[in-house]
């Protein structure tokens, strides 16, 4: 756009002065036209001022509510451009995120937790509908539930997009924004997974600058080692736990096992020989008791009961 060229300060000052002058009833339109015609840089300067004004005007409500939530305008964060290191067959569309501070408020957070044997539906103050899978927990912060923290487990979100509303879902080091969609987020056993069934979301991480854009039919998985994989996922399989199935596509075993632990109520230990394995497939939840044996069968490994009621997946019997 026009503003890249080096217009000197004087021209910009003149453009600002004209912009203010034209707001008056007795504006000197002839003088303004003569000024524009005197030098093409005048037009360029006026364009840039007019565009800036238009952007401010257009977004003032959104910016205002953002400042409301923050209490004070926050301290700056340097902007850098760094690409996420992504594994997997797909490469995400990356956008540069402006250094936007986390939303903080003085309001006391609310905690919602689902029992170990059933899921729990919650409608938040901002109209977002969420469903917590069994033994999952979220913490809702701020006026209008602007920040939702997934403490553990898996939660399905159905959120209508509203550009004037800043809604952030945090899961460990990951931050999900720009939400207008249906998606399921899982934070279990140190692993992270988000699948989008409708719409799109942006995901940022404390560990990298920039954002990953996730569209319907895509999932992003992060292992405990921080390795990220973006892959396609059937939209119908996103949040399939709501229909009694656990579906995985190349998921870290730690995440699968943590899910099973939640549903079965049993502590599950993964043999070190399987730690780096991934799992793809669907398990029927039922009462939770068949999940681990089924997983073991599919993977061709054994389940070993341990002292204290825990179960160990894989490795030799001992």
């Amino acid at each position, binding site marked *: 756009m026009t*503003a890249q060229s080096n217009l000197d300060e004087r021209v910009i000052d003149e453009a600002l002065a004209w912009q203010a002058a*034209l707001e008056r009833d007795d504006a000197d339109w002839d003088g303004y036209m003569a000024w524009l015609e005197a030098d093409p840089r005048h037009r360029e300067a006026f364009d840039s001022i007019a565009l800036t004004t238009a952007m401010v005007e257009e977004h003032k409500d*959104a910016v205002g509510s953002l400042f409301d939530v923050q209490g004070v305008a926050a301290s700056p964060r340097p902007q850098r451009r760094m690409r996420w290191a992504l594994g997997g067959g797909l490469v995400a569309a990356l956008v540069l995120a402006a250094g936007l501070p986390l939303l903080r408020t003085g309001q006391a957070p609310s905690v919602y937790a689902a029992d170990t044997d059933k899921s729990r539906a919650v409608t938040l103050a901002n109209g977002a509908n969420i469903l917590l899978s069994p033994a999952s927990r979220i913490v809702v912060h701020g006026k209008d539930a602007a920040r939702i923290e997934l403490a553990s487990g898996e939660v399905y979100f159905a959120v209508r997009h509203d550009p004037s509303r800043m809604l952030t879902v945090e899961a460990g080091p990951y931050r999900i924004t720009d939400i207008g969609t249906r998606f399921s987020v899982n934070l279990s056993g140190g692993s992270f997974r988000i699948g989008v069934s409708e719409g*799109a979301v942006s995901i940022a991480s404390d560990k990298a600058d920039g954002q990953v854009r996730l569209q319907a039919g895509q999932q992003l998985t992060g292992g405990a080692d921080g390795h990220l994989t973006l892959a396609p996922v059937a939209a119908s399989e996103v949040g399939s736990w709501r229909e009694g199935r656990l579906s995985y596509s190349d998921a870290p075993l730690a995440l699968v096992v943590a899910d099973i632990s939640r549903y079965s109520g049993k502590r599950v230990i993964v043999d070190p020989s399987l730690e780096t394995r991934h799992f793809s497939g669907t398990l029927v939840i039922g009462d939770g008791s068949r999940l681990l044996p089924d997983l073991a069968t599919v993977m061709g490994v054994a389940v070993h009961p341990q002292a204290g009621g825990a179960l160990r997946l894989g490795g030799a019997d001992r």
Partner: protein
Amino acid sequence: MNADQEEEVETLYGLHRGELRRLLNARLGDSVEAEDLLQELWLRARQRPVGPVGNGRAYLFRMAQNLVVDRLRERQRRMARERRWSDQETDFAQAGMEPTDRSGTAEDQIIAREEVAALASAIANLPEGARRAFELHKIRGLSHAEVAAQLGISKSGVEKHIAVAMKYLRRALLR
């Protein structure tokens, strides 16, 4: 709009058509685009009631100015979309995959969201005085006089702060 009003708009437009063309030419630096916007201005003017004829000229001039800004904004958004697409294109081409969704409205919402973020961050980075004056006036909608009273400074002090803020934001937003 009744027949009288329509006639009034026509008279007004006929009277100022030459000047409006001059303004649009000066504003756009392109006579073809200026002619195009002049047509659009005419179509729009006919659809809206007009104030007293005394203000008619300024009314039409402001309308012309707004049409130019709308066009600039549209061009700016289009460039943002194209930038995003070409980024995606490159990335997906490398992976041999097709981009999944290019829905215009979703894209526009992302762009709007990014603009809001950039704007909030740029305002937060302003020098303290300029930031407070700018926020009260441009974001909260207080008048210059109200901002002056609230900050305990003169009206011209407020104007200077706003000018500093505008210059800074212009640089930050239109890189």
